[in-house]
């Protein structure tokens, strides 16, 4: 049974009568690691907001394990789908890191040992275990972003959605995010992320969904989405495949979307 499904979802914002989503149909199975890529304005942000009910379809249906999401309140959907926003300063309100991370699970009803465990695990996953009493604003901007990630991780939702998790992160921060995705995947959770970082997308995800003008214009594993045959589609949405893919194509090595695939292909052909 697919975990998440969108059927012919159309979303029109009243303000500008813009069709942000123009008939999106998508099925994401439990445990998948899916990257959502596309130009600014292609509908990625609108799409993910439908997954936890912040936005409701103008027409079409969003369902979770077969149940219609329209019948559930956002607070209910938050038990299943945790969404991490891009700007941590648009959510941080607590005086300490620990209190900030506690907010989400507490709302979901976690208490005592379960709550403490969730908070500790989340802080450890993002490398902020030593900062539990620190004031969030004494952390730099990139660590605040990791704090926001921890605050949703602690909710232990089966689906984790992240909006631009690596933007503004240095190398260590990106490595931390990769670690979080690996950990979530190992625990059987579904991970969905919006990203502009093609290298990150090609290496950390099993599936890439390409959005353009409110529609899904590409969908498949990185090896096929970043293969030369798809470049025209990518360019039509103003995207470029990662360097490994481009170099591999130039050298006639077939589709090599990740560093590892390029290196193996290189070494194989001598």
């Amino acid at each position, binding site marked *: 049974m697919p975990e998440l499904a969108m059927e012919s979802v159309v979303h029109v914002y009243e303000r500008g009568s813009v069709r942000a989503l123009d008939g999106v149909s998508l099925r994401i199975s439990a445990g998948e690691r899916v990257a959502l890529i*596309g*130009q*600014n*304005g292609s509908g990625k942000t609108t799409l993910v907001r439908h997954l936890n009910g912040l936005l409701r379809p103008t027409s079409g249906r969003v369902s979770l394990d077969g149940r219609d999401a329209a019948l559930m309140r956002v607070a209910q959907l938050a038990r299943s789908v945790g969404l991490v926003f891009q700007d941590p300063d648009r959510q941080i309100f607590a005086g300490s890191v620990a209190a900030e991370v506690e907010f989400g699970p507490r709302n979901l009803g976690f208490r005592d040992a379960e709550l403490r465990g969730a908070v500790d695990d989340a802080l450890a996953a993002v490398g902020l275990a030593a900062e539990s009493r620190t004031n969030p604003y004494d952390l*730099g*901007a*990139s*660590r605040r972003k990791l704090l926001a990630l921890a605050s949703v991780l602690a909710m232990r939702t089966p689906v984790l959605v992240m909006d631009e998790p690596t*933007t*503004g*992160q*240095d*190398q*260590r*921060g*990106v490595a931390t995010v990769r670690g979080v995705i690996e950990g979530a995947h190992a625990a059987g959770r579904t991970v969905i992320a919006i990203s*502009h970082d*093609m*290298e990150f997308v090609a290496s950390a995800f099993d599936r890439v969904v390409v959005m353009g003008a409110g529609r899904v214009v590409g969908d498949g594993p990185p090896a096929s989405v970043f293969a030369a045959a798809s470049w025209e589609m990518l360019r039509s949405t*103003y*995207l*470029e495949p*990662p*360097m*490994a893919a*481009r*170099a591999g194509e*130039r*050298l006639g090595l077939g589709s090599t979307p990740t*560093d590892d695939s*390029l*290196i*193996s292909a*290189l*070494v194989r*052909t*001598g």
Partner: protein
Amino acid sequence: MLTFESVSYRYAGAARPSLQDVSLVIGSGEVVGLVGASEAGKTTLCLVAAGLAPRTVRGTLSGRILLDGTDMAPLAIHELAGRVGIAFANPATQLSGVAGTVYEEVAFGPMNLGLPRSEVIDRTDAALRALKIIDLAEREPALLSGGQQQLVAMAGLLALGPAHLVLDEPTAQLDPAGTRLVAQALARLAMDGASILVAEQKTDLLASICDRVVVLDAGRVALDGPAAEVLGDPRLADLGVAAPASVRLRRLADAAGASPATLSHLDGALALEATT
């Protein structure tokens, strides 16, 4: 030309200085990239270079900053406005808040400088064209997407036409297309003689537009040299900076035991891809 002479800076109330003994020169027509781990001091260096620290952002500055050879210290912020421009990562706060249209927003800087009306118009038109946002001219800045707002902020900076530009992660919120536009605009400005300092995490971007790269580590200059050299330095990883894709791939291939012939084929392919 922008010169730092043994500059140290400590924010008011901070225990430790954020910049220590920084000396560097950004020549006119030069694009200098600034990299470093998250709290290495890149933003502080940008604020100091633009003169906002210690003027608006309180703190203690030691050492000197020279603007075209003369000490920046006695100049007030508004005197620096036409000479040093700064762009931040968050586009929303860079909008003036008083412009009803993008056109007025971009014209804001030149208007403030009291330039003749025709010049204000010429500069605004040129800036909109350079960043390819003429079609946004009549839109309300507050209603644009983050990426669009960043382009508008950059256009506003271009219209001011400062001889020195300082940019703190200007492409953070932009998609690849927007990033390319900004990169092109910066390259063009450098060609016109501006001295440009750009802090970024995207080392691939810096590899394509920078003449030199400076690496900051805990407030000090760790490396300073030609872009290709610094970005290819193996010490970058320890300094918390990710090498550009081509450097990384080359290193991996080498480590995996690829033959010299293969490596040189790879170099060729990477070089060609870098220029497209």
